[in-house]
Each structure stands twice: as structure tokens, then as C-alpha cells.
């Protein structure tokens, strides 16, 4: 609305038109990047998809691209299990932390705690990976070898995505209108009843968005899982079994993959992008739902 206003009011000199065209060009270039990425993923994975077909990637028992087996299912499971585990741990902890900051913490502690979480959000994944490799892997190995395992991956990832969930939940709880809370308090509800009955339902969409963001980050995370998960292509039987995720598969083999092997890795990338696209769609849907509420 406002832009239309600007459009008709402001003068349109020759220079203005040039600037407008230039910026439109920049905008088109920015938009083209996504298309370019998808185009190149498709182009690079075309040779293998054309020769063996998509289904082989889901039906072959295992991943031996140099001897013609392209089963990506174990790695898809790896990605999903690591993500599921870490989200299951990080979601309650993250949301509880946010509730703590908003409603329970002593006034001086809340900003400090938020600061701590912000600090952790800023630590790069390779540093989490380094720490996981040096500290957690030997620890898990003492319980059951080899140490590089699904459990270690979940542990490290849970730490990594917790700040995302906590910070988004914190922001959306802060947006709950104070009048709601006062109203509930005036009805004599206990603090926890207010949180559970008023604050959480009101901030629901925000909490969901935080979780979705965290899932996206967990699925896409590469370095930390590459360093601590052991990278064996298998559907794990227990938490102590090593796994390989789709992202780690690319990072591990890309450097020396050639021809069809390389092409198969781009298919890994395509599957990943597909997963993210599904998540973005769910995210849109959650936000839209909130709009119509």
C-alpha cells in the first residue's frame, strides 16, 4: 500500500528510472540464485538419475556408488533419526528455558541466562564438532565402543539447536499481550496454569516456528555430525551404532568423487533440498494458520 503511494507521488526522472531498473536487476539476480541452485543440482544429478532412475536410490540395499549400488535410505534414516533425537531433547529444554526466562526467573537472572544462550547460538558448528570429537566421543566409548555414534550425534546436535528453539520461543512468549496474563492472574490461576493455559496457546505458532527452524538446522547440519557420527552407512540398531547422514555423505565423499559417484552425491543434495522444501511449506502453513485464527 505504502509502496504504491510512493510510486505515484515521487517524481520519475530519467535517473530514477535507471536506479529502479538497476535495483530490479539486483532483485532478479537474487531471486535467480535459488533457481540456479536447483538447476545445477538437477543438471549434475541428471546423468545418474537418467541411467539408473530415482527408485534405485530408495530401493538399493546399501551405498556403494563405485560398484553400482546407490541406496540412500540408510542415510536418510540417519538424517531423520539424528534430527528426531536432537529435537526431542532440545524442544522441552528450549521451551522450558524460555518459560523460565519470561515467567519464573528472578529479574536479574533472566537477561543473563538469555545472554548465555545467545552466546551459544553464536558458536560455529565446527567448534561443537571439535568438542564432541575430543570430549564426548571418548566418553561414549567408555560406555560402549566405538564412541562415534548416533547418540553422540544427537547429543551434539541437541546442544546446537537448543538456542534456536529457546530464543524463538522466548521472543514469541514475550509477545503474549500482558492483558491476557493479568486477566488470568485476576481469575486466581496459579502461575503454571497461566503459562499452560494462556501463554503457551497464545504463543503456539511462534513455538512451532522455532521448532521447525531447529529441525531445518538439524537436518542441514554437516560438520558436527560428520565429526562425531562415525559415518558408517547403516540403519542403526541402537543408539551406540554409528550412522551416516545425507549431509555427512556429501562432505565425506565429494572431495574425490568422480563421474557417476559425484552425480550420486548431487542426488543426496537434491533429497536434502526436498526435505527442506517440505519444512518451509509446513512453516508457511503454520504461519498462515495463525493469521486466520
Amino acid at each position, binding site marked *: 500500500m505504502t509502496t504504491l503511494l510512493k510510486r505515484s507521488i515521487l517524481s520519475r526522472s530519467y535517473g530514477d528510472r535507471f536506479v529502479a531498473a538497476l535495483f530490479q536487476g539486483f532483485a532478479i539476480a537474487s531471486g535467480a540464485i535459488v533457481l540456479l541452485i536447483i538447476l545445477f543440482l538437477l543438471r549434475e544429478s541428471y546423468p545418474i538419475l537418467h541411467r539408473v532412475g530415482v527408485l534405485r536410490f530408495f530401493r538399493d540395499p546399501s551405498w556403494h556408488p563405485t560398484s553400482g549400488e546407490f541406496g540412500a535410505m540408510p542415510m536418510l534414516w540417519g538424517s531423520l533419526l539424528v534430527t528426531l533425537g536432537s529435537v526431542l531433547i532440545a524442544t522441552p529444554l528450549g521451551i522450558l528455558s524460555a518459560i523460565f526466562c519470561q515467567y519464573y526467573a528472578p529479574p536479574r537472572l533472566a537477561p543473563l541466562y538469555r545472554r548465555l544462550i545467545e552466546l551459544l547460538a553464536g558458536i560455529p558448528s565446527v567448534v561443537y564438532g571439535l568438542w564432541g570429537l575430543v570430549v564426548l566421543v571418548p566418553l561414549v566409548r567408555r560406555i560402549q*565402543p566405538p564412541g562415534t555414534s548416533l547418540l553422540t550425534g544427537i547429543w551434539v546436535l541437541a546442544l546446537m539447536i537448543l538456542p534456536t528453539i529457546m530464543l524463538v520461543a522466548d521472543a514469541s512468549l514475550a509477545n503474549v499481550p500482558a492483558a491476557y496474563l493479568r486477566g488470568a492472574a485476576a481469575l486466581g490461576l496459579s502461575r503454571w496454569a497461566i503459562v499452560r493455559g494462556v501463554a503457551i496457546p497464545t504463543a503456539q505458532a511462534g513455538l512451532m516456528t522455532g521448532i521447525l527452524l531447529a529441525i531445518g538446522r538439524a537436518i542441514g547440519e554437516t560438520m558436527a555430525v560428520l565429526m562425531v557420527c562415525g559415518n558408517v552407512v547403516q540403519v542403526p540398531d541402537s543408539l551406540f551404532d554409528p550412522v551416516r547422514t545425507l549431509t555427512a555423505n556429501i562432505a565425506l565423499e565429494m572431495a574425490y568423487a*568422480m563421474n557417476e559417484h559425484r552425480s550420486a552425491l548431487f542426488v543426496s543434495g537434491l533429497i536434502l533440498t526436498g526435505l527442506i522444501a517440505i519444512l518451509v511449506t509446513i512453516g508457511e502453513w503454520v504461519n498462515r494458520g495463525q493469521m486466520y485464527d
Partner: protein
Amino acid sequence: MKSSVSLTHALKVTIAIASLSFGLMACGNSGNSSNATPAATKKLVLTGSSTIAPLASELAKRYESQHADVRIDVQSGGSSRGIVDARQGSADIGMVSRSLKPDEKDLQSFTIAQDGVAIILNKTNGIADLSNEQIVGIYTKKITNWKEVGGKDAPITVVNKAEGRSTLELFASYFKLETKEIKADSVIGENEQAIKLVAGNPDAIAYVSIGTAEYEANQSAAIKLLPMRGIEASTANILNGQFPLSRPLNLVTKTTPMGLSKEFIDFAQSKANDDIVKAQYFVPFVR
């Protein structure tokens, strides 16, 4: 009407952007060459085997110190990449840590050193020797505990290399294993990663380049090399041809090397630089 205007607009703009980006690229390129002029005028790119890469880097450093106008970039990435890059011309020289296969005979290869592949264990592991059958048993998970081969009661952590590495191919073909039959607890990329893993895990077993292993062991990595069929894994036994699992380290080119490529290959093969080869615990090329 409005939409048609914006469409032509969009068209014009895309053209503008295209030309702009090409301009930018051109600038980038010219800028680079002018930047590079004082430091280096000639550039040689080597890609391929991660086993050869450290050796090639050391050779490159010495070559650069003797020829101020040359810069040599060494990128590791596995032997198959060395083959493909040399073939496609994206590298001047490929590094391949095995003999060329029959379908690779279109390339020219130049051996610069010999290396072997040996089994490594953690230094604290009591096992001093493993038979070929035991190694096959461990790598196919028929043997899963060290006590089954006479060691302490501890589960074995099997370290395997990722698909496409020539060390894996050599190892598998020597033990007559299909890569699919190998069952591992940890899959790694580079030799160094295997060494680091074994050094940090008392129950791990891995196979790596002998040269790299000896180099790392000398840098105080807590590993030991196992003999193969009773023959000690050492550079001496590769030199006299006794060690069963040995391989040549090759530089490959698409055509008969000329100019800088030729000079560098000659340099790498020359006796004067054997000390570099030995410092990396490889066996110098026998002329």
C-alpha cells in the same frame, strides 16, 4: 499494461545484469593476473591422491624456492580425481597412488616413489601379528573381539576408508574382498584421519599408507604397524620388494609432459630430491 511494462523492464534489466556480471568477472580475472605478476607468472596445479599430496607439497616448496616465478598448488582428493582431472585438463598433473588400470592407459604415468599399505593398531594393543585370515575375519565382522585373536577382552573398532579411495581398492583386492563385504564401525577419508582415530582409540584397527603411518608415528602418534605375513611393514622391505602390499606413487599427465610439467616431473624423479621422499617415509624411485 503495467505488467507488460515491467516485463520489458525485466528483460532490459536481465541483459544489464548479465553484462555487468561479465564485466565484473573480467575485472576479477584481469585484477588477479596483474596481482599475480610480481609473485608468480607460471602456475602448476596438481590434484589427486591424498597419500601423495604431502610429498608433492614438499617437492613443490623446494621447486618454488629454486624458481621464484612459479607457484605450484597441490590439492588432495583421491586417486580417481587425479585421473579425471588430468584427463579433463583441470589439473596439469594428476597424482595416483596405484598402477594405472588397463582403461587408463591413455595417460602417461611417472613413478616418483614406492609406498605400501599396512595394518595399524594402537600402541597399547597387545597384538603383535595378525594372519591374513584374521584380518579378513575382522573386516567382515566374523571376529568382533580382540580376545578371539589372542588379545584382551575388548570389542574391535574397525576403521574403513570411504568409497573411491585407492587405498581401499588396494586393500580389498589384496585380501580378495568385495568393498560391500567390509563391515566397519567408522568410515574415514584421509590416511591421517585413520591414524588419528587409531591413536585415540586403544581398540581400533585400520589400514593406511606405510609412509604416512611412519611419518605420524615419528611425530609421536600412538600407533604401531603390523607385519604382513611375517614381513615387517617398513620402507626397507618395500625397497627390497618383500612387503606384499606395495604400490607405486605416480604422477600422471594427459600428453607427453612439456615445459613446466616436464620440469617438475623430472625434478620429482631426480636423485637430488630423494631426501624429501625419505623424509615423508616413502621409498625413492629406483632408476
